[in-house]
């Protein structure tokens, strides 16, 4: 219990440090102005989301291959955290897009595949909820998780190919000056640590829910719990 609290506090502290860097260390972008600062968290969140879904993929494959319930729990945790980070990515992207491009949305390869990503793993969570708890939910969700992960690059590729036939708005990416690069890398690391901590905490919750449903929810905040298998 206390080690999760400690990890969470550490992750939050790191994020605050990243925020400090973003607002006080990184220079203001000459072209886009202060709005550009969204980029640090937006891209970091996207990377954290992909990393989380990679965790889902590994957990799903392991579950189907080995029947490991722990792998399934890991997949569950990864999916939830991944959907949260994807939502953050999409929202921040839209907030950034409006002042810069004049529109909240455009159907280019990157945005389309991020939206598809969100839909797929929202579907994953829904399937988990609707299927019979236990084997059916784990099996079905694992299939969705695996297909979803493979689908995203396929969607990206096909939309990208289509865009070569129908050129649309281009997202310019200039080289980053060193302060910006450092800020971005630092933020990315902090965000990945946050994602990892969230997954670990969620994994713990899923373990408790598996082993002692009602008791876990009632007792968790106050008592000192034994680590589960």
């Amino acid at each position, binding site marked *: 219990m206390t080690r999760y609290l400690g990890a969470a506090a550490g992750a939050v502290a790191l994020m605050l440090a990243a925020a400090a860097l973003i607002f006080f260390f990184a220079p203001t972008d000459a072209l886009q102005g202060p709005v550009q600062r969204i980029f640090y968290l937006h891209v970091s969140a996207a990377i954290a989301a992909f990393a989380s879904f990679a965790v889902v993929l590994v957990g799903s494959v392991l579950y189907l291959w080995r029947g490991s319930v722990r792998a399934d729990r890991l997949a569950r945790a990864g999916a939830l955290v991944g959907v949260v980070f994807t939502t953050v990515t999409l929202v921040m992207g839209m907030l950034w897009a409006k002042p810069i491009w004049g529109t909240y949305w455009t159907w280019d390869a990157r945005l389309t595949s991020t939206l598809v990503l969100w*839909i797929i793993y929202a*579907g994953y969570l829904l*399937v988990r909820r*609707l299927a019979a708890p236990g084997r059916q939910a784990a099996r*079905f969700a694992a299939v969705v998780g695996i297909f*979803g992960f493979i*689908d995203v690059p396929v969607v990206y*590729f*096909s*939309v990208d190919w289509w865009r070569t036939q129908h050129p649309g708005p281009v997202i310019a990416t200039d080289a980053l000056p060193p302060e910006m690069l450092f800020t971005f890398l630092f933020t990315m690391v902090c965000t990945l640590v946050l994602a990892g901590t969230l997954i670990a905490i969620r994994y713990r919750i899923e373990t408790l829910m598996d082993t002692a449903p009602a008791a876990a929810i009632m007792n968790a905040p106050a008592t000192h719990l034994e680590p589960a298998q």
Partner: protein
Amino acid sequence: MTRSIAVAVAIARKDLLAEWRTRELVPALAQFVVLALVIANFGFQIDSRSAPAIAPGVLWLALVFAGLVAFGRAFAAEREQATLEAVLLTAAAPAAIFGGKALAAGLLLVLCEAVLLPALALFFGVPISFGLVFAVLLATVGMAALGCLFAAMVAQLRARELLLPLLTLPLWIPFIVAGGQAVQVAMGADGTMDQALKLLLDFDILFVVLTSLAARFVLDD
């Protein structure tokens, strides 16, 4: 292996026979498709200039919705009659069962396409070239594989009308993109049909292999 093919063929034949007896699905699909075209005609400003821009969208919209109905029904009947378990308990390979169902549902969708393409030619002036037909057929293969896999999953759950599109559409996007391009090329846009066809074939191979592997986790415990 030959056993599996025999099983898949038996199942496909059975499904087609059942459809022939009840005649529920194909007329409904054909009617839906023609209706979609008529609505598109009133909803969009169709003239010879806008037709090439709109026709691909109309084709794929109609096909996607028809596909959702067709593949959804493939397993709905099994669920209603409690027959899927009986079939599994014959020791038939789940991949073969899945293949047979996808084959039958795909063929029924092709029948629907046999109505859709001429109607498109009629209302939108889409030229029915060999390349276009081939593109639509290739896309149907992949869509059938994916649609039937998730239809099988969703048939065992609640909220199926919501879940099937949610799970299937993201996986159909590559087919819609490549297929849409094929229609545009057929109507005179730049680019080659070959590119679109190659993409569709690649997607087919990828997803047919994957769905065949996944079938046993979806159909059986």
